[in-house]
C-alpha cells in the first residue's frame, strides 16, 4: 500500500510533465526536435542533482539552503584549478569540487549537531558565508572557457546516442541515491528519522550521525553539480548558482518530497526538477509572457501540496476503513 501511493505520487509528476510537453509540442512541433529535447535535458541536469541532495536532507525533516552557494564555490574552485594548472586531469576537478562540497556539508552538519538549532537557520547562515567566501576569493575575477581544457568543456556538450553526457551523470546520481535510500538500512533510517525523530532515538538509530551524513551527501552533490556547471557554461564568476536554493526546494516539493520529512523519493525530486526546467522552456514556446513563469512555478508548488494533502486524506480514509484485524 505504501509503495502504491509512493508510485502514484511520482506518476502524477510524470503525467504533468507529459501533458506539458504534449500541449507545447502541439503548439510548436519543434519543441520535440532532437536539439530541443537535448537542451531540456541539459537544462534540468544541474537542478536535478541538487534536488536529489535536497531530497535526502528533507526526508530527515531538515533543509539545506546553502546548496546554491556550495555550487558556486565548487564551480569557481574547479575553474581556478584549471587556470593555475592548465594540464590538470579532469578527474581532479571532480575530486576537488565534490570534496569541497562535502566539506561544506561537514560544516553544515557539524553546526546543526553542535548548536542544536534548526537546519533552516544554520544553512541560511552558511548560504551567505559560503557565498561570501566565494566573492572574497574571486575578487571580481572571471574564469573563461579558454582557461579550461577542451576535454573538460566537451563534457558539457558531448552526447552518447543523442543523450547529453551531463544528463547521464544526473541519471546515475538519481539511480544510486534512490537505490541506497530504498535498499539499505541506513537509507531507511533516514525515512524513520524524518517520520518521527523521538521514536527514531528510542529505536536506537544514531539520529545525529545520519543527519550529519545527509548534509555531507547534499554538500557533495552540490559540489558535483558545481563542477558540471563549470563544464557546461565555461564562463564562471562568483555568482554561479546564485539564488538557486529555493528552486531546488521547490523541485523536491513538487516531486512529492514531504517538507516535514519521512516520505517522498529522489526519483520524484528529480522529476520535479525536470518539470520546473521544462516549464521554463515551454512558456515562451506557448507564447506566455516569461514574467508568468514564476507564477506558474508557484501555482505548481501549491498544486503539488494540494495533491499531497488530498492523497494523504484518501489514504487515511482507506486505512481507517480497511483496518484488518482478526482474533
Amino acid at each position, binding site marked *: *500500500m505504501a509503495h502504491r501511493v509512493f508510485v502514484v505520487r511520482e506518476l502524477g509528476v510524470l503525467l504533468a510533465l507529459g501533458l506539458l510537453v504534449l500541449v507545447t509540442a502541439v503548439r510548436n512541433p519543434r519543441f520535440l526536435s532532437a536539439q530541443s529535447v537535448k537542451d531540456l535535458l541539459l537544462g534540468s541536469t544541474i537542478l536535478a542533482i541538487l534536488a536529489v541532495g535536497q531530497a535526502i536532507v528533507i526526508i530527515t525533516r531538515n533543509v539545506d539552503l546553502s546548496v546554491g552557494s556550495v555550487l558556486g564555490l565548487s564551480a569557481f574552485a574547479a575553474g581556478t584549478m584549471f587556470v593555475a594548472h592548465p594540464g590538470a586531469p579532469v578527474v581532479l576537478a571532480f575530486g576537488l569540487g565534490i570534496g569541497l562540497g562535502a566539506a561544506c556539508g561537514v560544516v553544515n552538519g557539524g553546526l546543526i549537531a553542535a548548536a542544536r538549532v534548526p537546519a533552516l537557520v544554520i544553512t541560511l547562515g552558511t548560504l551567505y558565508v559560503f557565498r561570501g567566501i566565494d566573492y572574497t576569493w574571486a575578487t571580481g575575477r572571471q574564469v573563461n572557457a579558454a582557461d579550461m581544457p577542451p576535454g573538460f568543456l566537451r563534457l558539457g556538450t558531448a552526447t552518447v546516442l543523442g543523450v547529453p553526457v551531463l544528463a547521464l551523470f544526473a541519471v546515475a546520481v538519481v539511480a544510486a541515491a534512490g537505490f541506497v535510500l530504498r535498499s539499505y538500512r541506513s537509507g531507511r533510517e533516514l525515512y524513520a528519522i524524518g517520520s518521527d525523530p523521538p521514536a527514531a532515538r528510542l529505536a536506537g538509530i544514531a539520529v545525529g550521525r545520519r543527519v550529519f551524513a545527509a548534509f555531507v551527501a547534499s554538500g557533495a552533490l552540490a559540489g558535483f553539480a558545481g563542477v558540471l556547471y563549470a563544464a557546461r557554461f565555461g564562463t564562471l564568476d562568483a555568482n554561479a548558482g546564485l539564488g538557486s536554493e529555493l528552486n531546488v526546494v521547490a523541485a523536491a516539493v513538487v516531486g512529492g518530497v514531504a517538507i516535514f520529512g519521512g516520505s517522498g523519493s529522489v526519483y520524484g525530486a528529480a522529476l520535479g526538477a525536470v518539470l520546473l526546467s521544462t516549464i521554463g522552456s515551454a512558456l515562451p514556446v506557448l507564447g506566455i509572457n516569461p514574467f508568468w513563469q514564476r507564477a506558474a512555478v508557484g501555482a505548481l508548488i501549491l498544486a503539488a501540496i494540494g495533491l499531497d494533502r488530498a492523497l494523504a486524506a484518501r489514504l487515511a480514509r482507506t486505512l481507517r476503513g480497511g483496518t484488518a484485524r482478526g482474533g
Partner: protein
Amino acid sequence: MQPLLTLTGLSKSFGAVAALRDVHLDLHPGEAHALVGENGAGKSTLVKVLAGVVARDAGTFTLDGLAVSFAGPADARAAGIAVIYQEPTLFPDLSVAENIFISRQPLRGLRRIDPAAMRSRAAELFGRLGVHLDPDRPARGLSIADQQLVEIAKALSFQARVLVMDEPTAALSGVEVERLFAVVRSLRDAGAAVLFISHRFDEVFALCQRVTVLRDGQWVSTDPVADLSAEQLVRRMVGREVSSLYPKLPATVGEPRLQVRDLTRRGFFSGVHLTVHSGEIVALAGLVGAGRSEVVRAVFGIDRYDRGAVLVDGRPLPPGSPAAAIAAGVALVPEDRRLQGLVMELSVERNATLPRRWSLSRLGLLLGAAERRSARTWADRLNVKAARLADPVSTLSGGNQQKVVLAKWLSTEPRVLIVDEPTRGIDIATKAEVHRLLSSLAAEGVAVLMVSSELPEVLGMADRVLVMHEGRLVDEIARDRADEESVMLAASGHREAGG
C-alpha cells in the same frame, strides 16, 4: 533460581527532583511482574532506565548476574530488553514490516534489504500472535491496539528475554486486552520475564505473580499478588498523610457558573456532564490518559468537540473559540506551561500581560508603562521571584514560571478558572502558595475547576471530586466522603456510574 534481571539501589534525579531513590527490583525468567504506583511515583523513569533511554545516577543493574550499563536504547535492545511504551513509537510513514525490523532488516547480497524476507517474517510473527495485519501497509492510521501488536511483534522478532510494558492496556477494549494477555502469557511461559505496569488491578491480579509498589520514587514493597488485596495495594500506593498543606477556606457556593452538557469528542471522551458553581473548587481526578485535559481543552475552545454544549453563566459558549471563552470570563492554566502557557523567550511582564494586550493598549499601541504596572501588581500578589520583570521567563525556576502563568490568567479577572495540574513539578512552598491563592479566589466567588493527578491536592482542595475513567465521568464524591481509596478505586475503573 537466579533472577534474570536485578536492579539494586537505583537512583535517578532530574535537576533537583529525585525521580527514583534507592529502588530495587528483580525479575525471574517465566515471571510476570507488576509495577504499580501513583502518577509520578517513578514508574516511567524506571522503564526508561531499563530501556537505556536515561542513565542511572547510582545503583547496580545486572542481567544474568552480570553487571550491565547501557549507553543507549540500542544497547538495551541488544541485551534482549524490549520496551513497549504507553504511547506506541512507530514511524507512520514506514510500512508495518519496516517498523518491526527497522535497522535490523533481513539482508540479501550486497547488504541490500530483502523486502520479501522482511514481509514473510513479519507475516510469520503476526501468525504467531494470531492477528491479521498487512505487513505492507504504512503504520499511519493503525489503531492503538494494532500499534501495540506491531510493538509486540517487534519484541518477538529479536527474541526479547525481558519485556517491559508501560500501561499497554490503557487504550484497549476488553477483547483486545484478552488477546494481548494471551500473547504475554505465552511469552512468559516460554521463559521471558515480563514487567507489567498497569493501573488496573484486575489485570495485575489476573496476569502477574508478583507486584512491586513504588511511591514518590521509592520502593515500598514487593509481594506475591496472592498475598495482597486491591485495597491493600491502594493503601501502599498512596500511603501518606494528607497534610495541612491545603488551606481550604470555607466558601459560599453560589450560582452555577460553568455548565458542561453531554460533551463528547469521539475517541477522547464522551457524555461529560458537570457543573461548577461560583465559590466552588471542583477537582477532576483520574489517571493519566483518562481524558481530563482533553475535556478542559474542549471546554476552553482549544479543541473541537462533536456533541454537547458549554455554558458560562447560563449563556452558551461557541465551540472552538478560546477568544470567546476569554471574553466570557473563562481562563485556562494549561498543563504543560513550557508548551502551552508561556512564551519562554519573552520577558516576565510581557508574558504576564499577553492575554490582555488589547485592554492595556491605547490607540492600538501597547504601552510599556501600563504593561509594567499590571505585571508588577500581579507579580507582587503571587510572590514571583524574578531578578527583573524584564528578564526572559526561561530564566525563572519552575515554580516561579507557574506563578507567571497564573498571573497571566488571573490578571484577566476570570469568573471561571480552569487549572490543569497547577502544581506539577514545583516545590512544596510554592505549592502551598498556589493552593492558598486558589482557595482565596474561590472565596471571592470564582468557580474553579482543577485537573490534578495528585491525590492529596485533590482531597485537600476540592469541594467535590469528579472522577474520570477512560473518557467518562464515573463518579462524583463529596468532600466529606472523598478519600484516597474511593478516588483511586473509581479512577482505576472499579466503580461505574456515580451520583
